[in-house]
Structure formats: structure tokens, C-alpha cells
């Protein structure tokens, strides 16, 4: 492999690693002062346990051999011979994918904020990665869903829809938080997190080309435009609807746009990323209100942003996919003369991911609920999880 490609994979991997702390700050800033450390810890924990899990068996189960329909094997247990590969491409790719595996469960943490036992989280994460993330990842990349023709460039279905629906399952089981909900304890922290997330997302999406080539450049441009369009539209909706443009709206819209472009980044071009980002910005801006309507307590809107944004982006591929611009072989979207085939595949892939992830998440959490318990007691919830679970307080004078 050319050194330029390897260089791009390596830096992209580092950028995706950086996203988990970024996500932690994004969520942590939105949380209250007495729960922010628990939030940070749930996120950092993912990036401690998942890398190990990934290289020991995750990668092997998810990708080796690539042809398998449903699951890999244990052939690359502890990476097997892979590390021996001289030019570093495989190793770099495994690291890159490991970053994705780490951030996916971290996404869920925003939903379960303020009430989940950290011990339950600590057990949930590795099991969920193995039983929900690894199979769906396999099916989408190389497995039966991918073979049928569904597209997911950088993890719309495998990551955002997957984590988003798991978040919904989790909050349905956990129940609502007690007492009044606090507004974000530190908006500057949220905005730092947003900046890091957007920066890292260039690695996430453009790095998924696994080379520094035209597809990477297009994915990069798309990541730029969709983030901007998502943020812009969310802010405009707020401004018109609520009378005020907000920072949290800008941040949320950027993330919504980025989520939506993730599956599409390497398949669309021209004005499509603007359209996808803008649609996600508007749709998610309304979707975060669903929780009030349906009464589930998705604390930091993982469902409204990641699940809905992921679905939006994934389905829009069915309209905007434009193989002309890319070397890859894939179906045309409806707007470029394609038939509904691609759209149906997109719907199918997401449908499968939703069902599997929802069931698995529910099963794991039910098992935990009736063993060690998944929810902290009322007093801990009132006083804040930071002190009770971690014996730490975020700020001291």
C-alpha cells in the first residue's frame, strides 16, 4: 500500500479515537453537574474495554473471513498472523475499525444517563458489542445484507441505527428519571465536544475509503457539507418555530447532519450532501420531541438524533446514490435513474438491524435487571451518580 494511504488510515483512526472523548464532553456538558462524571466514565469505559475485546475476538468474528454470510470465525483470534503483515495496512485497518467498535456503545450512554448502574453498564458494553454490534457489522460489511446490495459507507446502519435503537430499548427498560430534569450544566463543554466530533468525523467518514483517493475526498466534502447543512437547518427551524437560534440546536444539527451523511458519504456527491444534511437537521429537530409524545425518557436524545438521523441518511441513499462519481459498483438511487431496489435494500438492512439490536439489547438488560439490577436507587439518583458510584465530584472550589 502506498504510504499516503496508510498515513490517511492512521490519522483517520486517531481522529476516530478522539471522537469518544469528544462524545463524552458533548454528552457530559448536557448532563447535570452531579452526573457528568458518570457520563464521562460510561464513555471512557467503552474505549478501555472494547479495544481489547476487538483485537482478541471482535475483529475476527466480524471480518475473518470476509466472505462469511453471518459471522466470521476465530481464525484471527488475538489478531493471529495479521500483525505479521509487513506493510501495516491490515493492522491499521483493524485499529481503525476498533475505534468504531468503541464509540458505538458509547453513543448509547446518552440515553441511559442519570440512572443506570455503572456495574450494569460495565457488563452490558462488552456483551452488546459481541452480540449486537459484531453480527450487524458483519451482515452489513461483507455479510448477507451487504451482499444483497445494501449500502452503508461508514456506519449508518451498523453504528447509528444500531446504537440508536439499543438506546430506545434501554430507556424503555430503565424507565424515566425521577424528579425534574436539569438543563445542560455546561454548554461550552457541549460545544468543545461538538468541535471534536466534527473534526473526528472527517476521519470516520473519509477514512472509511481506506485510502487517500477520490472517494475519500468526496466523503470528506460530504462530511463538511452535511454537518453544516444539518446545523444550519436545525437552527433555522428553531429560530422560526421557537423564536431563538440556540447553540445546542447548532450542535445537535451538526451531529444530525453528520449521522445522516455517514452511511451515504461515499455514494453521493454534488448537492446531495447538502440535501441529506438539511433533511436530517429538520427531521431530527422534530424527532427529539417524540420522546415527550411517547413518554420514553431518552435523556440526551440518542434516539432522536442517532436513530432517526441514521435512518434518514440510510434511506436517502436510495434516492441520492450516484455511482457515476465513484469507482465502486453499486445501484443508482431514484433521483439518478435507479429503481426502488436500492431503497428497499436500505429499508431491509435497517429493519434487520433494528429488530436484532432491539431484541439483543432487551435480552441483555433484562438478564442484568434480574441479577445485579440496572438502575440506581432513588437516593443515588437524587444526590447524583458521580459521588455515589465514583466517589468523585466534577468541580471543587
Amino acid at each position, binding site marked *: 500500500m502506498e504510504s499516503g494511504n496508510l498515513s490517511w488510515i492512521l490519522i483517520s483512526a486517531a481522529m476516530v479515537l478522539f471522537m469518544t472523548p469528544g462524545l463524552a464532553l458533548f454528552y457530559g456538558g448536557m448532563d447535570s453537574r452531579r452526573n457528568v462524571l458518570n457520563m464521562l466514565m460510561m464513555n471512557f469505559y467503552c474505549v478501555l474495554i472494547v479495544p481489547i475485546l476487538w483485537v482478541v475476538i471482535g475483529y475476527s468474528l466480524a471480518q475473518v473471513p470476509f466472505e462469511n454470510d453471518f459471522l466470521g470465525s476465530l481464525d484471527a483470534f488475538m489478531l493471529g498472523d495479521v500483525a505479521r503483515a509487513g506493510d501495516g495496512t491490515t493492522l491499521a485497518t483493524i485499529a481503525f475499525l476498533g475505534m468504531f467498535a468503541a464509540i458505538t456503545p458509547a453513543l448509547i450512554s446518552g440515553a441511559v444517563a442519570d440512572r443506570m448502574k455503572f456495574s450494569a453498564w460495565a457488563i452490558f458494553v462488552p456483551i452488546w458489542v459481541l452480540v449486537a454490534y459484531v453480527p450487524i457489522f458483519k451482515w452489513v460489511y461483507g455479510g448477507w445484507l451487504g451482499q444483497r446490495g445494501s449500502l452503508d459507507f461508514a456506519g449508518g446502519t451498523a453504528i447509528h441505527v444500531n446504537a440508536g435503537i439499543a438506546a430506545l430499548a434501554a430507556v424503555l427498560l430503565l424507565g424515566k428519571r425521577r*424528579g*425534574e430534569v436539569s438543563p445542560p450544566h455546561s454548554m461550552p463543554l457541549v460545544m468543545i465536544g461538538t468541535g471534536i466530533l466534527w473534526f473526528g468525523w472527517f476521519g470516520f467518514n473519509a477514512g472509511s475509503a481506506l485510502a487517500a483517493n477520490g472517494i475519500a475526498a468526496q466523503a470528506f466534502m460530504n462530511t463538511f457539507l452535511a454537518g453544516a447543512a444539518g446545523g444550519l437547518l436545525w437552527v433555522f427551524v428553531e429560530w422560526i418555530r421557537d423564536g431563538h437560534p440556540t447553540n445546542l440546536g447548532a450542535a445537535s444539527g451538526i451531529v444530525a447532519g453528520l449521522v445522516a451523511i455517514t452511511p451515504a458519504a461515499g455514494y453521493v456527491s454534488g448537492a446531495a450532501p447538502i440535501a441529506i444534511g438539511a433533511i436530517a437537521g429538520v427531521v431530527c429537530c422534530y424527532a427529539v420531541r417524540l420522546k415527550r409524545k411517547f413518554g420514553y425518557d431518552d435523556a440526551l436524545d440518542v434516539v432522536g438524533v442517532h436513530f432517526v438521523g441514521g435512518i434518514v441518511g440510510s434511506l436517502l441513499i436510495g434516492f441520492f446514490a450516484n455511482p457515476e462519481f465513484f469507482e465502486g459498483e453499486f445501484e443508482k438511487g431514484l433521483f439518478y435513474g435507479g429503481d426502488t431496489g436500492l431503497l428497499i435494500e436500505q429499508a431491509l438492512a435497517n429493519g434487520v438491524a433494528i429488530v436484532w439490536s432491539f431484541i439483543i439489547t432487551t435480552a441483555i438488560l433484562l438478564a442484568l435487571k434480574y441479577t445485579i439490577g440496572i438502575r440506581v436507587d432513588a437516593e443515588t439518583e*437524587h*444526590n447524583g451518580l458521580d*459521588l455515589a458510584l465514583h*466517589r*468523585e465530584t466534577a468541580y471543587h472550589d
Partner: protein
Amino acid sequence: MKLITAIVKPFKLDDVKNALKAAGITGITVSEVKGFGRQGGHTETYRGSEYQIDFVPKVKVEIVISPDMVDTAIDTLLQAAATGKIGDGKIWVTEVETIVRIRTGERGADAL
């Protein structure tokens, strides 16, 4: 005029405020304080070093009120702020000689 000062648990503040409002008390002033008492503090652990935190977060509620309302106010506070656990806090009452509304210069009961 009397000044009622209540030290309560922070998460009870909303209940307290709502109860006082319901009891017809229209103005209060609140501040964050730290309490030291029977409840004791807690330890926090940083890199295995324990820090004894002696002070517990509390909220102070101050209410200037006409003398005839004092008992109502205290009862309301007792109801709204009590959890029955150590550390629920105190209420104390002091005499106020004058009360003035800054906006109008009104004094006494009119100033409330």
C-alpha cells in the same frame, strides 16, 4: 416583619418553592451554602488518596414575612423539606425592623 431562614437539601428546593407559593408566599431569596452538622460529610477518592469532604451542599432559603404568616411558613417548610433523614436542615426566625421595596421605596407589609 420577620425573616425566616431555612437550610434545606438542594433537591428539595423545587418542592419548597412550590409549597411556599401555594401557601401564598410570593417572594423568597435563595443561595447555595455548605452545611456541617450531624449528617457528616463524605470521602472522595482521587488516585487512591482519600479526601474528606466535611461540607454537604445545602440551599438557604430566606423569606421576609409578616409576623402572622410565620407559623404557616414554618409548617409549609417542615412539610416540603423533610425527608426524615439526618441532614434535613434547620429553620430559624429573626426579627426584621424595616423592609423596603427598592423599586418603589414602599415600606413594611407593602414592600413584600
